[in-house]
């Protein structure tokens, strides 16, 4: 054994200088290889994300025919329009209400799924996640048909209970409700899955200890579950806030912003103004108004992600 070790050592010694040169060479190669491996990613992000984002700011300062620089002209124009403020208000109502209900329903349903015996959980989870799997454009069509004014399946059912025909997408208040309902239907399963994963990671001993101390069910949720799930709740909510705030498919298909622009949100209005109305600079300015809230949410998410990265 000892002989062999010494033998190896003596063989290695003359080679050391060569290895050092080789090592430097390899290091050099490693960075080149790394650069080449990440090059497509860098190109994609620069050309198709960063550049368009900057270009969007440039576009927002041009006039409709895109030949003249107007500075903040588009923004001034928007600030003077009532429709713009309506869109701001509606986007906030839409995003906040939808996210709150998604989070609440997700939380409750996750608890119910967590409550039942483990072998049945898979089946229930599978059924409850279906809304998230169907492409939203397709499922919104089903909702549109459920909401149909004359052949509406909902109104047909409600008529049995003596509730009169509801103008699901025809009346401003109901249309807002419908749009939020569909969004909650679509997004709640995501919260459910995230919370379920978080619930499973809470150690059972904590609940036992709480039960021994005489905690009732809401005390267990308030003092054990919620603190343990705080990270996941925060990150999921922020994620969903971004996605919901930028939502397009559901509103576009269900109401197309109507009746009388009463359900337009930033994305659908930007599409209406920029693509359908072919005023690209104005459309770009409208969608730029999403940036502040997205940036705030992104900063919080990033802080959370890097914090947990440091912990692990």
């Amino acid at each position, binding site marked *: 054994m000892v002989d062999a070790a010494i033998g190896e050592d003596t063989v290695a010694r003359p080679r050391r200088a060569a290895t050092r040169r080789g090592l430097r060479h390899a290091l050099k190669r490693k960075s080149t*290889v*790394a*650069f080449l*491996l*990440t090059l*497509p*990613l860098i190109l*994609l*992000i620069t050309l198709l994300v960063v550049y*368009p*984002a900057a*270009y*969007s700011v440039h*576009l927002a300062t041009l006039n409709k025919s895109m030949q003249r620089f107007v500075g903040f002209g588009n923004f001034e124009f928007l600030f003077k329009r009532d429709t713009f403020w309506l869109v701001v208000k509606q986007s906030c109502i839409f995003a906040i209400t939808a996210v709150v209900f998604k989070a609440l*329903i997700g939380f*409750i349903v996750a608890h*119910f*799924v967590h*409550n*039942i015996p483990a072998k049945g959980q*898979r089946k229930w989870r599978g*059924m*409850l*996640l*279906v*809304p998230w*799997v*169907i*492409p*939203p*454009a*397709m*499922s919104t*069509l*089903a909702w549109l048909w*459920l909401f149909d004014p004359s052949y509406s*399946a909902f109104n*047909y059912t409600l008529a049995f209970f003596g509730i009169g025909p509801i103008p699901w997408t025809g009346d401003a208040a109901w249309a807002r409700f419908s749009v939020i309902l569909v969004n909650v239907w679509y997004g709640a*399963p*995501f919260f459910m899955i995230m919370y379920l*994963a978080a619930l499973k990671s809470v150690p059972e001993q904590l609940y036992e200890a709480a039960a021994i101390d005489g905690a009732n069910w809401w005390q267990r949720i308030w003092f054990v579950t919620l603190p343990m799930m705080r990270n*996941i709740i925060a990150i999921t909510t922020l994620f969903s806030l971004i996605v919901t705030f*930028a*939502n*397009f*498919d559901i509103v*576009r298909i269900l109401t197309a912003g109507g009746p009388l622009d009463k359900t337009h949100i930033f*994305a659908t209005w*930007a*599409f209406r103004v920029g*693509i359908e109305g072919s005023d*690209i600079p104005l*459309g*770009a300015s409208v*969608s730029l108004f*999403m940036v502040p809230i997205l940036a705030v949410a*992104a900063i919080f998410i*990033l802080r959370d*992600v*890097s914090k947990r990265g440091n912990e692990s």
Partner: protein
Amino acid sequence: MSTMTVDKAGPTRTVKYGSMSRDRAWALRWSYFFLTLFAIFSLVPPLYMLITSLKGSAEISAATNPWWVFHPTLENYAGLLTSNQFLRFFFNSAMVSIIVVIITMLISIPAAFALSRMKFWGSATLATGVFLTYLIPDSLLFIPLFKMFALIGDVTGIQLINRWYVLLFIYPTLTVPFCTWIMIGYFASIPKELDEAAIIDGASWLQTLTRIFIPVALPGLIAATIFAFTVSWAQFLYPLVFTTSADQLVLPVGIVTTLIKGDVFNWGQIMTGALLGAAPPLIIYAFLMDYYIAGLTAGATKG
């Protein structure tokens, strides 16, 4: 059934414990009750698609009980599956999604490998940048991207607007950041000894990636593939903006724009189309649910 067994097990111990177990049984019953309610809420729209797709147009306009099919017929399916236009949508969607998945994997696997294993100047910043890109929604970029591709057409004469393959450039902006991000997570969880051993045995970086990382991180790879496919399949805003001619449309946009003619809604066909459009993601989900969920939770929990 299981509630009964819990009930029986309880009273054999002390009285106090029996009441706890009775609480538990009630909690279980309530759980099942509410879960059933939520499951109904979740499944009504897809089931309603199925119900309507089996109805003839006469039955739909007769406004009979909407929740039941009195004269089941497959005429909607036959109509759509023999329509060249619809098959064209399906073909376009399939082509776009499959090619985007391949592009995404070709970009994000090497990048994730480099970012998780080869620490180089700016690698941490780049990883953060990838994550930030994932947070940028499509509704922020569609107008500048549209203008950009229109300009490319004007300057170089290569017409990309209103061609289905323009989506091959655009969709990776949605899929690559997320796939790279979760692949970084999966690659980072592979023990360093494994690739060190490979390097010592004389494997090159590329061999380490193809012989060690890809096989070991296969579950993550499947999750990322599923994600890329479902996102590409479901995308609605970009194809709506970039394509207009009927033969260039992908499925979701095709159904929404061609089956709805003015105020005339042929609901039987629309629901059939929607169901067929929802089928590929649903089938993938049915068979690969665990990977699907792994990918879903990895996005926010890995990092």
